[in-house]
């Protein structure tokens, strides 16, 4: 299982310099990437600029994407994450922060705006699992930073992530079964 066939065609067109292919990939993935960027920087105007920057980087670096190594979304996610982290680091540099880590001095937000709260299947996870996923995938923490932020050993934190993903997989599988059941009933 990898990048789907339609995406492969779009990526091929994009590699040949077809901007329309980039706009179609934008239509498909901008929401997912904006969800990550906005949750990381928690500033809409900045997130919008970073999303645009992310797609410009996708446009200029598409020749480096290797479909055999992973899905397009994973590659685009890494670009979005790194672009956002670099931007946050620049801001930290401007306020003379000597620490290299992005979130070392930042408290984990407890009261986030409504629209950037995690939703869907993630809400069904146990709070510590939900937190672990939020930190590494939606707030740009490394595993090292995240276990410190949560105040648990690294090994424990890693098992939180693994358990959370396992739980999510079960949820998605159940959703698929329900969807199948509904379709079968309707048919």
């Amino acid at each position, binding site marked *: 299982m990898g990048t789907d066939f339609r995406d492969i065609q779009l990526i091929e067109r994009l590699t040949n310099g077809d*901007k329309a292919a980039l706009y179609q990939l934008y239509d498909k993935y*901008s*929401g*997912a990437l904006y969800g990550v960027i906005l949750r990381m920087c928690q500033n809409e105007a900045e*997130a919008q600029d970073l999303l645009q920057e992310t797609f*410009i980087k996708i446009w200029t670096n598409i020749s480096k994407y290797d479909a055999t190594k992973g899905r397009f979304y994973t590659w685009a996610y890494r670009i979005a994450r790194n672009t956002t982290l670099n931007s946050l680091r620049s801001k930290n540099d401007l306020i003379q922060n000597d620490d290299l880590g992005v979130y070392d001095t930042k408290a984990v937000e407890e009261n986030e705006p409504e629209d950037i709260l*995690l939703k869907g299947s993630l809400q069904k996870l146990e709070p510590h699992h939900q937190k672990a996923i939020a930190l590494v995938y939606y707030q740009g923490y*490394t595993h090292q930073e995240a276990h410190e932020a949560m105040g648990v050993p690294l090994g424990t934190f890693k098992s939180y992530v693994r358990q959370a*993903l396992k739980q999510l997989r079960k949820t998605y599988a159940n959703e698929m079964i329900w969807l199948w059941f509904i379709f079968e009933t309707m048919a």
Partner: protein
Amino acid sequence: MEKKRILEEGLLEQYLTGELSMENQLMVEKALNEDKSLKEHFDQLEADFEKMAFEQAIEPPIGVKAALVHKLEKSPAKQVQWGPLWVAAGFALLFGVATFWMYGQWQNAERSLKSLQEQTVNLKERMDALESDYILTSSQLKDINGPHVIPLVLYGNQKSPGAKLVAYVDHNRKMVMVNSQGLPPLPASKTYQMWSDVEGEMINMGTLSPKEELIPLKYIEKAESLNITIEPAGGNDHPTVEELISNVII
């Protein structure tokens, strides 16, 4: 071993976000390439990750796409990396020219070789002809310079006053050779013919072509004289006595 470590240490989850060191990243990629079950595990992880991302998606304002489109459409078309292409094209051109030049040289060499071969064959043929001529001439010279050879000169009579023919007769070797260079040319319908007189009977010795150095003729036993007549082209069975132009007693 690596698979166990990758799974136990949660390296796939870190690989997904791109936070691994280069060394660990390469190790994970190698393991993913080599281990099908690990790759399947990662594929599932990526699929869940993407599903989660779509679930957590937040629609950006429409202005972001408009700004992106505006920025990209304003910028020049994506720059194709012409540098390497030009280098490759240069090499291809150089290779093409070199190949063409080599082909030309090869064709020239082929032509020269063929010409040389033809010249060699020609020279060999000429050499063979010269050698053959030399052998013939040597042999003829030897024939007419033998100790028993009698040279006889036949002068033309009033019918052909300027005619002259030299005959070499060797009775030991039973050979007759003539030099007909002194005979005047005849019309195409006529030829010179030589006869031996044996007890009153004229025996045919053969026809003569004017301007030839040495012509071997038939040796006739007991010939008393040699005679030359002018006959129709191709020769005659009997001499035309009226056309006798020269004779000599042996």
